[in-house]
């Protein structure tokens, strides 16, 4: 079945093969929702769990994400047509003073791969910018920091969201090399993910979806 082939293409990072496989499935009458769920999201779930287990690494994740993005650009118009909702809306960024983005980019890709709609604010994102990016549809604010010296910015962002009256209707997820569950608990974050592989899983858990 084509969906299996699509699954393999995405999991192995074969972006070139993806558009054709999707077109073939659409022509065969497979629903866009099923193509997305069984052919693409499940593939990214596998890659995510392989990453968590230490079976694949950053390069393999990136090419799988690239294949996923190639697939999404072909499938998106069909998903919109069929009114297939995303799993949730995430605003993500690396905190102020911190310019590191590979980890954050991987998380964004894995969240997209899981079916979330992601707004990536980039790096060196001030608390004000996080607040401004949140709208009525935002479910999760996700923050990344690589350094012990920039990690405290996460607390400032939570403060800013609280002051803006937004904290209670959002879930806050944090991650990055120095970040720990202890720190997450300290600042009142809702979830902590140690790596990009587990991030999508945690996001679904924290929203009670998927």
């Amino acid at each position, binding site marked *: 079945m084509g969906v299996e082939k699509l699954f393999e293409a995405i999991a192995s*990072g074969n972006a070139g093969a993806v558009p054709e496989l999707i077109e073939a499935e659409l022509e065969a009458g497979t629903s866009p929702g099923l193509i997305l769920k069984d052919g693409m999201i499940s593939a990214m779930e596998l890659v995510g769990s392989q990453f968590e287990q230490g079976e694949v690494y950053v*390069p393999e994740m*990136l090419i799988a994400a690239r294949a996923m993005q190639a697939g999404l650009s072909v499938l998106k118009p069909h998903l919109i047509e069929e009114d297939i909702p995303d799993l949730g809306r995430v605003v993500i960024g690396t905190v102020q*003073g911190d310019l590191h983005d590979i980890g954050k980019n991987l998380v964004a890709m894995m969240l997209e791969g899981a079916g979330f709609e992601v707004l990536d604010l980039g790096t060196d994102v001030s608390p004000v910018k996080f607040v401004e990016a949140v709208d009525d549809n935002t479910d999760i604010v996700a923050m990344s920091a690589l350094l*012990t010296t920039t990690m405290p910015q996460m607390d400032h962002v939570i403060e800013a969201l609280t002051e803006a009256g937004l904290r209670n209707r959002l879930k806050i997820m944090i991650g990055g090399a120095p970040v720990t569950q202890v720190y997450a608990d300290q600042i009142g974050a809702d979830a902590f993910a140690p*790596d990009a592989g587990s991030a999508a899983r945690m996001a679904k858990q924290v929203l009670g979806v998927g």
Partner: protein
Amino acid sequence: MNSRERVLTALNHKEPDRIPYDLCGTAQTGIHVGAYSNLRRHLGLPSREANPRNLLSQFADPHEDFLEVLKVDVRHVPRRSTIGETYEQREEGNYWTRTDQWAITWRMPKTNGLYYDLWLSPFDLDDVAGRLNTYQWPDPTDPWHYELLREPAQKARDKGKAVVLQGFTAGILETYAWLRGYHRYFMDLATDHKTASYLLDKLVEIKAVYWQRALGELDGLVDIVNETDDIAAQHALMISPDTYRTLIKPRHQKLFAAIKKAAPGIKLFLHSCGAIRPLIPDFVEIGVDILNPIQLGAKDMNPVELKREFGRDLCFWGGGVDAQGVLTSGTPKQVREQVRKNMDALAPSGGFVFAADHVIQANVPPENFVAMWETFREHSSYS
């Protein structure tokens, strides 16, 4: 026993009079300018300007009185850097930027900025071959790189200190990532080994020429060669062991062999932080003598296990205290307890130079540093 003898004894897997101590002796055992100023004040040393020795990391260029008070056994030979700092600082919007000899541009946020980070990479484009036609590689035969080396090396030798010389640029993998941009670099490792091989080979060649020249000119004045390459993150390697062994290991092997040929008997220090354990046997195989920094908070970097498994073949330079954890956010009491434990694990039979398990960052309280140092001093005697 002077400092140099102490360090060399330890590096030859014997117990010297006391465990040697390093701070600022290598490119990776530094202290951020912010922490340096705080610590000088705390130690009652006269106020001196804290200048960065390394622009990217903002490590302080320590004054000699600081190193003497702390009884540091190692001295770093200052070499002119090609990375990050050759050209003038510019102001671009909310950032300070600098472009270096590799045509890499770095930037630091003006607000709350602590370091320069990678911004623009000269090979962050599709047409690598085209760019190579116009690209000027830094020239390792330029006397500019060697003019200022001999005097500080001789001075450090005369003071009886162990002398460390840094490499030309950072590791081949890191420099490759900076030349290509992180995204393309990781993608290359998955899908374009041709580009990766070409650029890595070029970097090995440049670095080997530098080492041959530098070690020749300094003729016996250098005790330790400071190489580096970052391959691991906090919880895992960034690339698969297979990728490392296929693409990078042969090149590391070639480079390390060239270094040892240029200076037989010299000790090879490799910085490779994070969860690097799966590759340690490979490092031993290709001639690494000293591993740094033994990042305690990273996965599987347990000092007791590492000493047991690799202590015969490898020296550990670092691992004294968890800089990400206890040293930054613990109490002095917690710092003391951890330092004792780590020393007990790593010191037996020599092969250990004490340093924090990574850089002393700006937010490390001076009280914690002092707790670390005092505990080290109290227990560093081998007799």
